[in-house]
């Protein structure tokens, strides 16, 4: 009997089609149902399951299940459900459909067995996620959404070019497999395309630009899918590429430095996505079993705690209407539950023992140490210090403590707290029972994070970071403003380029159109009646028969003149 294999993303894409047909008030609940259905499909797929489809002269592998795709499948489907629960109060069908398409694209990409399917899912993610930014429906979001889309179209273009090269190189074969380090131009192009989505510095600016401007609920989905689907792609295609180690380490530090300067709470979290994805990119670059386990485990943990962080920040934005640290403060007494749930995520991202980030980050840093990359390991530890500084200390201190600005937050919907509670519970569960995560990792894991040596080191690192923060807390007072990033290189000269290529070209075309129209009008009038033009220095539109018709003697004179000239020419020709 042939086993039917259904790609898990299909449940979410089917949901996006069905959702608008349902009654308005059940759509939000249906969103959670479709997400849970995709989670069930993930668990139903055994290792090695495939779904091949003939398309033109290609065999498309719509679904190919193994340990790596299952790990990402589980967490993508779970976070889609948790995000759906968080957005249960939402009555915005466009946003719900976009989120389902987005999550379906991410699941499709991690199960795709060929580059064509992968590319289609990849671009579906880019298009759908843009709507989650635009759904905020304000000028800032519209502009940031366009920049986001342009970046992803650029990345998609590189990816497609790489796929064309690969197809030409392999005689049309497009099955996804790991590339040998530095193997071909096709591999480099695909790597660059994936690097855009992984927010590798300096191709990262779409992330801190767009995520803080997305909707409260949309940002939760955004934080989970795009960068982690890219981490999956890197782990699948580029394990052991040395360049990724240093690209990853640079990301870890770049993100934490910018987070210190950011004022927007979701901006701080966005820069910490860059930083945390850096750990995963470096883990993939190591290419060892432990490195890849660390990268994938950290992606799994990161999706959970980062979604929880965005949920808590979104709750603050939803209830107060304020998004900047410089406008917040003193919310702790009025939102104690939000504070506690936020701190669970903050402790997780900071690598505090008994929270999931402690496990996954430790595996990655230890993998670097064991691979003999001591400098990389040390720099990643420094980035961990920066993470605790910004997300674990600065953000909560200036949002929930510090100066009480007398804010009176609205009551948040119960479903927001429930979604945060469920996500927080999983963060703690994986922190105290790492084995639950280990069994889903791509390679057998034998790592013991709770050794006394490791606990001692972590305690020292975190407590002394706290001490340094306490000493410098006045210096870290938030300031409103813009922090320049690599997007300066295209945003600042944008006005000049707009003048050169848009305004100047537009003026040229307008001028040409006006001149052509004037010429046509003049010629039309002239052909109707050419007499008044030389006489009056202008063209007269009306034609008066008595006034303008030439006299008979004039016509006879012209005819005689023409015949005389023709006769003279004929005589000359005969001679």
């Amino acid at each position, binding site marked *: 009997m042939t086993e039917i294999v259904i790609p898990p993303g299909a449940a979410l894409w089917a949901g996006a089609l069905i959702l608008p047909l349902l009654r308005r008030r059940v759509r939000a609940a249906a969103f959670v149902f479709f997400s849970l259905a995709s989670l069930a499909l993930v668990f139903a797929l055994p290792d090695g399951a495939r779904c091949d489809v003939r398309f033109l002269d290609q065999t498309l592998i719509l679904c190919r299940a193994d340990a790596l795709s299952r790990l990402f499948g589980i967490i993508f489907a779970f976070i889609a459900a948790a995000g759906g629960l968080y957005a249960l109060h939402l009555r915005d069908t466009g946003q719900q459909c976009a989120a389902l398409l987005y999550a379906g694209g991410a699941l499709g990409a991690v199960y795709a067995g060929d580059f064509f399917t992968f590319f289609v899912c990849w671009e579906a993610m880019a298009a759908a996620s843009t709507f989650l930014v635009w759904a905020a429906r304000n000028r800032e979001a519209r502009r940031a959404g366009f920049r986001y889309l342009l970046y992803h179209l650029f990345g998609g273009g590189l990816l497609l070019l790489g796929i064309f090269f690969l197809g030409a190189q392999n005689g049309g074969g497009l099955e996804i497999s790991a590339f040998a380090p530095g193997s071909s131009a096709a591999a480099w192009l695909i790597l660059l395309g994936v690097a855009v989505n992984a927010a590798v510095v300096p191709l990262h600016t779409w992330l801190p630009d767009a995520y803080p401007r997305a909707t409260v609920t949309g940002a939760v989905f955004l934080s989970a899918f795009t960068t982690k689907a890219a981490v999956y792609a890197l782990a699948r295609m580029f394990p052991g590429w040395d360049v990724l180690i240093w690209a990853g380490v640079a990301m870890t530090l770049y993100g934490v430095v910018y987070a210190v300067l950011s004022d927007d709470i979701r901006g701080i979290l966005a820069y910490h996505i860059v930083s945390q994805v850096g750990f995963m990119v470096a883990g993939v670059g190591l290419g060892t079993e432990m490195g890849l386990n660390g990268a994938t485990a950290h992606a799994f943990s990161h999706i959970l705690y980062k979604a929880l962080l965005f949920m808590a920040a979104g709750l603050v934005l939803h209830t107060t209407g304020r998004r900047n640290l410089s406008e917040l403060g003193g919310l702790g007494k009025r939102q104690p539950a939000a504070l506690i749930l936020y701190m669970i995520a903050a402790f997780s991202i900071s690598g505090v023992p008994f929270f999931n980030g402690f496990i996954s980050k430790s595996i990655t840093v230890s993998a670097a140490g064991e691979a003999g990359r001591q400098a990389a390991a040390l720099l990643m530890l*420094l980035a961990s*210090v920066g993470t605790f500084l910004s997300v674990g200390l600065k953000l909560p201190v200036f949002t929930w403590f510090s100066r009480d600005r007398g804010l009176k937050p609205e009551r948040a919907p119960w479903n927001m707290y429930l979604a945060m509670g469920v996500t927080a519970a999983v963060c703690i569960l994986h922190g105290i029972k790492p084995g639950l995560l280990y069994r889903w990792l791509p390679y057998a894991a034998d790592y013991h994070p709770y050794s*006394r*040596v490791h606990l001692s*080191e972590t305690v020292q690192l975190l407590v*002394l970071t706290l001490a340094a923060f306490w000493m410098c807390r006045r210096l*870290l007072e938030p300031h409103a403003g813009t922090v320049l990033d690599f997007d300066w290189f295209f945003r600042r000269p944008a006005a000049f380029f707009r003048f050169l290529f848009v305004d100047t070209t537009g003026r040229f075309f307008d001028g040409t159109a006006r001149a052509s129209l004037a010429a046509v009008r003049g010629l039309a009038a002239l052909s109707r009646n050419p007499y008044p033009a030389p006489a009056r220095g202008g063209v007269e539109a009306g034609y008066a028969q008595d006034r303008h018709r030439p006299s008979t003697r004039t016509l006879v004179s012209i005819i005689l003149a023409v015949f005389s000239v023709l006769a003279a020419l004929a005589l000359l020709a005969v001679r």
Partner: protein
Amino acid sequence: MTIVRTILRAALATALAGLVFLSLAFQIFHPPGESRHVSWWESIPGFFALFGFIGCLALIALALGLGRAFLRKNARYYDDD
């Protein structure tokens, strides 16, 4: 209320300092074993405490220095274009 807060703050600081001293004592009396893969810094007792403290100050100095030098601009920097 202020007294309660002061007492809580002092208790927390003491507990954290106690944890650091305990970890330091552990590192001094139980150096990392030969069998474990050890980086050079893991053999130095208190290295992580120093690294956390100095690293944090260095990151703050670097970020604020870059911010003051050229990264920080007013909120309408791009909107003025």
